[in-house]
C-alpha cells in the first residue's frame, strides 16, 4: 500500500492560547517527583595537598562526620580514594561521593601528580560511555560516578599559585568543573587576602585556566551568582568543633587571640561556598558535567577510535557503516595475521624437517661405518682362526708323526725285548 508521510510542520509552529486550564503545568512536578524517588547523585573531587583541610571542609559542608583517617605524608604517589555516603534531607535522597587525592604534593618529584587524577576522571567518563554504547543498556538506573565538581584547595601562602597548582588545574579544566578555594584562610590577614585573591584570579586568567562559571542566564539566580563570582576564590575555614558564641553553639576554631566563626561571613567565605556549591548550582554543576565535559570526552574518544560524523564528501556517515568498515578492517588484519602465522609455521616445519634429515643422514653414516668396522674385525678374526687352524694341523701332523715314531720305536723295542727274552729262553735250553 502506498504511503504518503507528511513532514512535521516544524517551520510554522503555531503559538496557541488556551481557553481553559489544561493542567500540564504540573509537568515539572511530575518530572521532579520521578527524580526524587530515584534519588540524586553528586560527586565531589577534592584536590589539594595533604593536611590542607579537605576532609574537615567536607565534614563542615555536609554537617556530618565522614569517617576517615588523616593521611600520612609518605605516600609514594598520588592515590584517589573515593567514599560514598547516602544523605537524606526531607524527601530528597542524595548519593554523595567524595573523592580525595591522597598524597598530592608530597612527593619530591611531582611531575606526574596530576596523572592519577586525570585518569580517574576519564575512567568515570569511560564507564558512562561504555554504558551508553551498550546494546542493552539501562541509563535511567545508572549510578553516575562522574565528577560533578572539583574543589581545588590552594595553600594560603599569601603570594601566588604554586606551579603545581597551575599545571594541575590546566590539565583538569577541560574535564571537570573547577572551583578554586583558598584553604585554611584563617592564616591570612584581611588585607593580604584581597591581594592574594586578585593575584590568583589574574594568574588563572593569564594561564588560560577555565574555572567553573556560575551561570548567569536565568534571572532568579543570575544576581546571586554574579555577586558571588566576585569573591572567587572562596577563602574558607573548616571546623567540626563547636564553640559557644554568645548563647549559641557555632562551628568555629578557637585561638588564644579570638574565635574564627565558620559561618560568619566576615570571617570567611564558607557560607558563600555552601550557597554556590549546594543551594544554588548543584543541578547546574551536574548538567555542565553531562552536557559539556562528558560530551567533549565522548567526542574525543569516538574520534580517536576513528568514527566520524561525515565523510570527506560531507555525506552523513551512519555509525554503523563506519563500524562495518572498521570491523572489516579488523577482520582483514586478523586474516593477515593468520596468514603470517601460517607461513611461519610452514617455514618452521621445513626447517625442522631439514634438521631431521641431516640427523638421519648422520646416523646412516655412522651405521655404515660401524658395519664396515665390524666386517674388518670379523675378517681379522677369521684370518687368525685360519692361522690357528693351520698351526693346529701342523701340530697334529707332528704329533701323529711323533706317535708313529714312538709306536715304531716301541714295537722295535718290544720286539727287542721279545728277542732278548727268547734269547734268554733259548740259552737255557
Amino acid at each position: 500500500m502506498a504511503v504518503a508521510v507528511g513532514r512535521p510542520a516544524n517551520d510554522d509552529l503555531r503559538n496557541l492560547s488556551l481557553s481553559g486550564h489544561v493542567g500540564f503545568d504540573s509537568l515539572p512536578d511530575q518530572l521532579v517527583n520521578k527524580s526524587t524517588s530515584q534519588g540524586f547523585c553528586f560527586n565531589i573531587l577534592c584536590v589539594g595537598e595533604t593536611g590542607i583541610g579537605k576532609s574537615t571542609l567536607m565534614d563542615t559542608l555536609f554537617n556530618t562526620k565522614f569517617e576517615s583517617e588523616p593521611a600520612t605524608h609518605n605516600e609514594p604517589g598520588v592515590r584517589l580514594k573515593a567514599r560514598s555516603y547516602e544523605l537524606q534531607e526531607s524527601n530528597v535522597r542524595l548519593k554523595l561521593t567524595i573523592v580525595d587525592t591522597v598524597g598530592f604534593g608530597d612527593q619530591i618529584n611531582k611531575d606526574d601528580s596530576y596523572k592519577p587524577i586525570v585518569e580517574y576522571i576519564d575512567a568515570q567518563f569511560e564507564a558512562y560511555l561504555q554504558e551508553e554504547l551498550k546494546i542493552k543498556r539501562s541509563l535511567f538506573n545508572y549510578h553516575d560516578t562522574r565528577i560533578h565538581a572539583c574543589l581545588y584547595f590552594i595553600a594560603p601562602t599569601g603570594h601566588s599559585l604554586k606551579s603545581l597548582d597551575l599545571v594541575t588545574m590546566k590539565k583538569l579544566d577541560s574535564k571537570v568543573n573547577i572551583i578554586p578555594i583558598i584553604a585554611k584562610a584563617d592564616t591570612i590577614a584581611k588585607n593580604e587576602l584581597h591581594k592574594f585573591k586578585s593575584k590568583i584570579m589574574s594568574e588563572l586568567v593569564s594561564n588560560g585556566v577555565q574555572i567553573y562559571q556560575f551561570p548567569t542566564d536565568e534571572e532568579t539566580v543570575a544576581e546571586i551568582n554574579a555577586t558571588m563570582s566576585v569573591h572567587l576564590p572562596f577563602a574558607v575555614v573548616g571546623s567540626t568543633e563547636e564553640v559557644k558564641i554568645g548563647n549559641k553553639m557555632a562551628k568555629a576554631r578557637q585561638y588564644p587571640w579570638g574565635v574564627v566563626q565558620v559561618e560568619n561571613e566576615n570571617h570567611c567565605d564558607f557560607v558563600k561556598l555552601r550557597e554556590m556549591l549546594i543551594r544554588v548550582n548543584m543541578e547546574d554543576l551536574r548538567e555542565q558535567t553531562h552536557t559539556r565535559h562528558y560530551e567533549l570526552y565522548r567526542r574525543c574518544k569516538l574520534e580517536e577510535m576513528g568514527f566520524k560524523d561525515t565523510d570527506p564528501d560531507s555525506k552523513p556517515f551512519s555509525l554503523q557503516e563506519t563500524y562495518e568498515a572498521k570491523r572489516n578492517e579488523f577482520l582483514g588484519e586478523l586474516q593477515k595475521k593468520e596468514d603470517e602465522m601460517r607461513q611461519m609455521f610452514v617455514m618452521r616445519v621445513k626447517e625442522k624437517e631439514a634438521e631431521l634429515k641431516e640427523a638421519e643422514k648422520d646416523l646412516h653414516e655412522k651405521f655404515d661405518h660401524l658395519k664396515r668396522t665390524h666386517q674388518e674385525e670379523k675378517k681379522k678374526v677369521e684370518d687368525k682362526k685360519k692361522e690357528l687352524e693351520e698351526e693346529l694341523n701342523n701340530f697334529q701332523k707332528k704329533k701323529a708323526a711323533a706317535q708313529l715314531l714312538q709306536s715304531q720305536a716301541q714295537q722295535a723295542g718290544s720286539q727287542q725285548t721279545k728277542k732278548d727274552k727268547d734269547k734268554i729262553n733259548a740259552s737255557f735250553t
Partner: protein
Amino acid sequence: MFKGPVESKNEATMSELVPEPRQKPVVPMKPMGINTSLLGYIGIDTIIEQMRKKTMKTGFDFNIMVVGQSGLGKSTLVNTLFKSQVSRKSSGWNREEKIPKTVEIKAIGHVIEEGGVKMKLTVIDTPGFGDQINNENCWEPIEKYINEQYEKFLKEEVNIARKKRIPDTRVHCCLYFISPTGHSLRPLDLEFMKHLSKVVNIIPVIAKADTMTLEEKTEFKQRVRKELEVNGIEFYPQKEFDEDLEDKTENDKIRQESMPFAVVGSDKEYQVNGKRVLGRKTPWGIIEVENLNHCEFALLRDFVIRTHLQDLKEVTHNIHYETYRAKRLNGNGGLPPMTVETEENHESNL
C-alpha cells in the same frame, strides 16, 4: 573492539575503594551505604527547586498520535484535551476534504504555555486509517512512522558532536479510537493494537460515548477489556513497567476499572446552571464533556496530562526506544538503512 582505558589502567594508582557503578534496582530499596545523620540544615533539598527551574526553562516536548476511522471525533477530542485548536482540521485544512485513498500521517506542531511551562505539542493525525475497503496492513505506515522517529533520535544520539538537547519527535502516546458498536472490538482494532502495543504506548478510547447508555457502556468496556486481555494486548499503563507497589495499585485500579475511557469531545461552550461548559447540545439535553457523570473525558485528561504525562515520555524513552535501539544495533530491525549483522558480545558494543 572496545577495550576502554579502564581495563588497561586499573593499576595501583586507581583506588580500590572506587565503588562499581551500582545498578539501582527498579524497586527502590531502603537507602544502603553509610547512612550518615545530619546535624544541621545543608540545603540538599534545594536541588528540587533547581531542577524544576531548569526544566521549566528548557520546556517540554509532547507528541500525541490519534488513530481511528474517520468520523469518530478524533480531532474534536484532541482540541478538547488541549483546550485549543490543535488538530489538523483546525490548522487550515479543509473540513470537507476527501477521505484519502491511503493512510497518511500528518503531524502538526504547536507551542502552548501554561503557568510558566512551555510545551511543544505535536498532534499526529492518521487520516485514511481503516477507511478503505481493503484495510490490510493499514497499520504499517503508522508503525513505519513511529520507527522512523526512533531512528531519527537514534541517529542524533549516535553522532559524535551531539546537540545539547536532541529534538524529540518520538510518539509518546497513541490514542486509539474504538467505535462504540456496543458489541466487541473489530478485527482491525485487534490487529492494530496487537502490532503497535509493542512499539508505542497505546491508550484505547471509546469514541462518541454519548451513543451508549450507562449499562451499555459498562458492559462494552468489560467486553473490550476482556478481549484485549485474551489477545495479549498490553495497553498503557503496562503491567510489566509498574515500578513499585504504589504504582501497581494505582495503575491496577485504572486498568481494571476505568480503561478504556469512554469519551465525548466538544469544542463548543454552552450555558448550564449558570456556568459555561464544554458540551454537546441535543434535543434531549446537554452532554457536559467535563462532567464525570456524563462521560469519562475528565478522567482521560487527568490521566494523560496531569498525572502520567511525564511517565508516558519516560516509558517511551526508557523502554520502547531502548527496545528499538537494541534491535537496531543487533542488526535485525529490518528497517532502513541496511541491516547488517553485528556480533553480540563485549567486543563490539555498537
